[in-house]
């Protein structure tokens, strides 16, 4: 058993509980347990593009320092901080590499962290759980743990922007990613490619102009459905929220009949590995995935 210092991020405790619970459950099954950092703070999103705004970088550096301490307390752990939310992953990775190449920046930030004994010395690596699954565990081992192959699931991998951009934060090739594809296949489901795999979900426009998001979501969903998909797999709570919520909105506004459920990749894993269905919190989804499970007679 390997223990990983796990950074949840706010969404995993609020809108995406099923994401966290299913991921932790499968991590145990794969002997690569995600152990939550006891006192974590905001990752510092949205990452500021202003290079000298160090105030906004205190949060991510503090997260890295606290994770470093956590790693020391964990038995049989690696020097990785593992995230599930692709937004947190991106923010932490970018800042981690910024302070690595610019030690002066780190020194100024550390001055703020000194009194708390939480200074950082650029000795952690930020990993998305998908990277751990691919690089440390391997898809063969995952396939071995599958007890209920996802027969009849036709899943379009949807990466969104944060998993593949920018250079410092990407977890896979930005033009031809394969990690979600390989994972979905190892679970016994069929992969349905959509060219809109990283087409913007509308992101934070959901707060100020919902219509922008609705338009984006319609294109993403149509592109998957037209190719025969009956589900979408995601890794970002904001993508999931927009895709799920706005499909419901489209049905109410336009009388659109069909919709496809949005799964976090870990929920698909939990289903295939025979975890109790409740841990997925499907009741939080607007487009209830349990309807698809019923159609496919998945038990």
């Amino acid at each position, binding site marked *: 058993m390997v223990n990983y210092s796990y950074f*949840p991020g*706010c969404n995993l*405790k*609020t809108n995406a509980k099923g994401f966290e619970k299913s991921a932790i459950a499968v991590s145990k099954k794969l002997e690569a347990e995600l152990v939550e950092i006891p*006192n*974590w*703070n*905001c990752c*510092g999103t949205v990452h500021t593009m202003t290079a000298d705004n160090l*105030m*906004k970088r*205190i*949060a991510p550096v*503090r*997260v890295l320092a606290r994770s470093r301490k956590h790693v020391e307390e964990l038995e049989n752990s690696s020097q990785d901080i593992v995230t599930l939310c692709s937004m947190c992953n991106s923010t932490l990775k970018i800042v981690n590499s910024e302070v690595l190449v610019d030690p002066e920046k780190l020194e100024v930030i550390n001055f*703020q*962290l000194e*009194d*708390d004994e939480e200074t950082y010395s650029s000795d952690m690596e930020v990993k998305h759980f998908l990277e751990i699954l691919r690089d440390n565990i391997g898809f063969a081992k995952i396939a071995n743990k599958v007890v209920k192959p996802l027969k009849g699931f036709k899943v379009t991998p949807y990466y969104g922007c944060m998993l593949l951009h920018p250079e410092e934060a990407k977890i896979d090739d930005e033009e031809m990613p394969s990690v979600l594809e390989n994972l979905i296949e190892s679970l016994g489901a069929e992969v349905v490619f959509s060219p809109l795999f990283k087409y913007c979900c509308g992101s934070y426009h959901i707060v100020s102009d919902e219509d922008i998001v609705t338009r984006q979501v319609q294109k993403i969903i149509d592109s998957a459905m037209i190719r025969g998909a009956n589900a979408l797999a995601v890794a970002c709570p904001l993508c999931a929220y927009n895709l799920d919520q706005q499909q419901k909105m489209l049905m109410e506004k336009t009388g659109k009949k069909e919709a496809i459920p949005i799964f976090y990749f870990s929920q698909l894993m939990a289903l295939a590995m025979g975890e109790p269905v409740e841990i997925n919190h499907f009741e939080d989804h607007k487009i209830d995935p349990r309807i698809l499970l019923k159609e496919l007679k998945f038990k």
Partner: protein
Amino acid sequence: MSKAKTESKNTKKETTGNVKIYIMGSAYEVPATLTIMKAMEYAGYKFTRGSGCRAGFCGACSTVYRKEGDFRIYTALACQTMVEDGMVLTQLPFVPADKPTYDINNLTPSANTILRFYPEVARCLSCNACSKVCPQDIQVMDYIQFSLQGQIDKAAEESFDCVSCGLCAIRCPAEIPQYHVAELARRLYGKYLMIAPSYLDERIKEIIDGKYEDGFKELMALSKEKLEERYKNRDKE
């Protein structure tokens, strides 16, 4: 109760004799054995606000000070902190902070509830300035983060020792009134999340059924002397 603090570990030389302090810019010689609050009274100031229980519980006497030749801003409860030579003092009569009104019966214990009344919580920079000034040694930033994460139970427990002195709020670059947020978190915790003990209902039923009526009647009829005698001889744990 607040932990009595003498901020400087190295400069605490003597507890007898006089020290020189500055109150709102004027110099005074005061005995070194006094707290900040008593020293200001010794110097002739009279508190009508910014003072309360004088025992570290009420949080009314938040103080901001500096020391000669030291750039840092220090904070304390005036009734719990001894004067030191070279302190530059003032007393805060009140910490201004917005306090929204809500009906606790119509809320849900979630991050969204916290953000509805205190949207500024999302501006937290994790700088931890709030925890550094807390005279109760509470991890203020951590409980603000817990409440932002919807971990209301953790926020309530971490903030439990808060005396609402408001020092966190005056140091916060994100302008969060932390102590009011904590109060909302504890109310949500008490109302929706804490498991009510089983004996509470039993005790309420006993009271309604009049189990203690005779005892109260007996006590009410006693003379002052008899009451005092009973008090002195009461069962003590």
